[in-house]
């Protein structure tokens, strides 16, 4: 979901000026300015002590491209909201640092499925307290899940722009009330919770590990459910202090955090800094400048172009986020001639993808081979990308009766996305490759909101798009992006409008099975069929670059896009 709605966007000068700007990226403009790098940020400006401030010590400053929307995890859909909630809240399970491996978190162990995957029993950690001093226990877990699941629950609401929509609950668990895959959640004893499911769900434990299903303080929600989103209370490593809209979210260390003695390999330890300031700096160049000038400890949402220059700066380092995303060119199967498989395969062979990935991603991406990224289980390593071969592409076109080529439109997004740093550049490169085999593609773009609306109602011939996963399960890619049920006339996520009953059956089996052997078989087969049918030309798995001061240590970006910063020290 975050793939589109997330806030990890970088605003370029182009965005609000529609002029070429200086044509320089932030880093290029700054040159390899050696100053500021490696300097500890002491509250003041790049090394200047802000006198009179007791808070100047040990502040970790995280720079990002946009402000959060809501700090109630279940009410948020954008990545920049989770960036904050991940610090304040804990889920029952979590993903180990830098991976999508599920580890125990507020639950002391990852439960085994019982009754064929219809029952899960979670043993909870004892002695954990919410930031408001109330106890975390089985009742708290029940309270949260009841609040999300049951539309008649008095707390099934919450302020903010998205009150009571709980979009993620219904997308991951099938809906609310009778539609919810989770039938009931019961407290067996104060530290044991039993989940009963209506049907087995393959990604269930991964869903439970998501940031969205973090456990909030029942007392705080009961006290003021309408304002909880502005005053979040969880059990996490940092406590909420204040939220200055459009500027900064301030958090402070939770000295009583349960995880301080938990193994570091599983994400425990710390918190190591006294304060955490999460700043929004929409302008990308400004954000890079703030990192170079030593105003930020860590800066997210850089352009790949910034990477080489930042690497030259001895005071800074560049960290790549492991890829849980895929960028692709989708062909609309409802539009001729893309209903013919040969044509789609021809497009795959006509485009010199290795060269495009090298030019536009550099070290921050690897060419995509299959339709899920390598961080996801059941990724089929044996599938190789289509070879670049204009000659074979022409043959395929001739076989489809299009030896004279054809005219079409290629749509690209106007702003950089984590999975697509330069939509326009990539589209132009593809256009010139396609021309060589007789396919004349006209380039089309719209403002981002409009682009999403038009592509999700199938108005395009071909379009560039991408997806960032949520729970590290193949279901969260293939079922969302390539099943018939996602190919709706409006709000489609399956923008290729690819409908294959056989693939649908495989994906359904994968979704409902908890047997790793069965899941492996169906997802391997689905990937093979997709590769042959070629509804997309997969481009790359992007590893979004993050810059940090050399002195920052213990920072491990999560593929899911937000990570708890308890392990980071300055």
């Amino acid at each position, binding site marked *: 979901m975050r793939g589109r709605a997330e806030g990890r966007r970088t605003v370029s000068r182009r965005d609000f000026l529609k002029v070429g700007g200086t044509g320089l990226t932030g880093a290029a403009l700054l040159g390899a300015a050696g100053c500021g790098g490696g300097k500890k940020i002491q509250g003041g400006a790049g090394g200047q002590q*802000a006198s009179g401030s007791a808070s100047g010590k040990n502040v970790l400053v995280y720079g990002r491209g946009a402000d959060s929307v809501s700090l109630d995890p279940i009410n948020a859909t954008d990545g920049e909201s989770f960036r904050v909630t991940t610090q304040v809240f804990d889920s029952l399970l979590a993903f180990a640092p830098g991976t999508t491996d599920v580890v125990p978190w507020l639950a002391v162990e990852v439960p085994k499925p019982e009754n064929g995957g219809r029952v899960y029993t979670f043993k909870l950690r004892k002695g954990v307290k919410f930031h408001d001093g109330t106890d975390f226990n089985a009742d708290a877990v029940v309270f949260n899940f009841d609040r999300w699941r049951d539309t008649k629950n008095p707390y099934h609401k919450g302020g903010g722009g998205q009150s009571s929509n709980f979009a993620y609950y219904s997308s991951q668990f099938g809906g609310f009330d009778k539609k919810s895959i989770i039938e009931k959640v019961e407290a067996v004893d104060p530290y044991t919770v039993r989940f009963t499911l209506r049907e087995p769900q393959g990604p269930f434990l991964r869903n439970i590990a998501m940031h969205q299903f973090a456990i909030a303080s029942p007392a705080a929600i009961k006290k003021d459910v309408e304002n909880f989103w502005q005053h979040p209370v969880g059990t996490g490593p940092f406590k909420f202090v204040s939220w200055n809209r459009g500027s900064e979210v301030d958090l402070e260390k939770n000295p009583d955090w349960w995880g301080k003695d938990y193994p570091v390999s599983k994400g425990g330890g710390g918190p190591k800094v006294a304060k955490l300031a999460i700043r929004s700096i929409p302008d990308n160049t400004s954000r890079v400048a703030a990192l170079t000038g030593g105003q930020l400890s860590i800066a997210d949402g850089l352009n790949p172009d910034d990477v080489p220059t930042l690497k030259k700066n001895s005071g800074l380092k560049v960290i790549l986020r492991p890829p849980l995303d895929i960028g692709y060119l989708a062909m609309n199967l409802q539009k001729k001639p893309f209903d013919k498989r040969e044509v789609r395969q021809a497009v795959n062979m006509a485009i010199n993808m290795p060269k495009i990935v090298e030019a536009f991603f550099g070290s921050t991406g690897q060419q995509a081979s299959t339709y899920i990224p390598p961080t996801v289980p059941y990724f089929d390593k044996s599938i190789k990308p289509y070879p670049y071969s204009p000659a074979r592409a022409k043959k395929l076109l001739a076989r489809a009766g299009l030896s004279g080529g054809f005219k079409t439109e290629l749509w690209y997004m106007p702003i950089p996305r984590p999975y697509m740093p330069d939509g326009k550049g990539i589209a132009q490169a593809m256009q010139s490759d396609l021309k060589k085999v007789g396919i004349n593609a006209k380039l089309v773009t719209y403002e981002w909101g409009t682009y999403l609306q*038009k592509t999700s109602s199938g108005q395009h011939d071909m379009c560039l798009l991408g997806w960032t996963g949520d729970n590290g399960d193949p279901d969260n890619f293939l079922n969302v992006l390539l099943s018939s049920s996602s190919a709706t006339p409006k709000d489609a996520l399956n923008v290729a409008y690819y409908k294959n009953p056989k693939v649908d059956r495989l994906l359904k089996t994968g979704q409902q099975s908890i047997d790793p052997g069965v899941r492996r078989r169906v997802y391997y087969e689905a990937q093979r069929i997709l590769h042959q049918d070629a509804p997309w030309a997969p481009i790359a798995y992007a590893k979004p670059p993050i810059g940090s001061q050399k002195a920052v240590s213990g920072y491990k970006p999560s593929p899911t896009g937000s990570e708890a910063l308890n392990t980071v020290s300055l």
Partner: protein
Amino acid sequence: MTVYIIRRLLQIVPVLLGVSAAVFFMVRAIPGDPAQILLGQNATHAQVVRLRHEMGLDQPLVVQYVDFLKNAARGNLGNSIVTGRPVTVELAARFPATLELTLFAMVIAVAIGVPVGVIAAVRQYSLLDKITSVFALTGISMPIFWLAMILIVIFGVKLDVLPFPGRLSAGESIPQVTGLVLVDSLLAGDFGAFRDGFLHLLMPAAALATIPLGTIMRMTRSSMLEVLGEDYVRTARAKGLMPWRVVFKHALKNAMLPTITVIGLQVGLLMGGAIITETIFSWPGVGQIAYESVYRRDYAMIQGVVLYGATLFVLVNLVVDVLYAILDPRVRY
């Protein structure tokens, strides 16, 4: 005079009605569905439909507009789609940042623009006059995003003397009373925060000041030239008064009249939110939220920002006209 002011105030109503209609229908003509944007990528069609209904977006446009007017007449501009808070509250929260930035930028522009304009007029056709003309022209035509970036690179990064972005350093906060950092920090007796806030203000204000600076300079120069050619100035000189005394005591007061108009209009413009400057410096003011709301299709918020800007502009105009009448006895309404 009172009658004139009342008449002018009443004229605001049709202006705002026109503006509100224009912005209301224009905003909705932008493709892109706020419900879809809010719910994100994974939302089902049913969820989107339900949210559209909750937001009242499934009503006919005219019905929506009439509802909007009814509420607006009571001072309720609706709730921001993104934050859920009333638009008026959001604007009020952002207003002090924009006000502080605008006033500071105007102080810089006036403090430099007026004296330089006067000197350029008195020493007409001198080298100094030519240099300031070039400078003014550069200031007017320089793209602000470029200038802002250059300032950041030079003063923020290379020389490392001025802090950015935002209004205070990370982790700093002061109790909010007026919302103006410089005032609140003094009220709290926190001189460290005052200094920090002041330093944060310098770069964005300097960048923003270049917009009105050139205009003020040129306006002062040309009206000063006109006044210096008047009979009474020649009389004053003939009486043997010191040339500079003539310039500052007799001529400047009259020459300032057109300049005041320009200053007023520029204040009105900048207070509407300096979108680019605020975005580059992450200055949490009205300009920044204007940009964000368009991006997020926050209909209510865009309407609020535009109406606020229009109201401000009309009021500033009125104040300028009234000032004019007070300063220039020849003007009668």
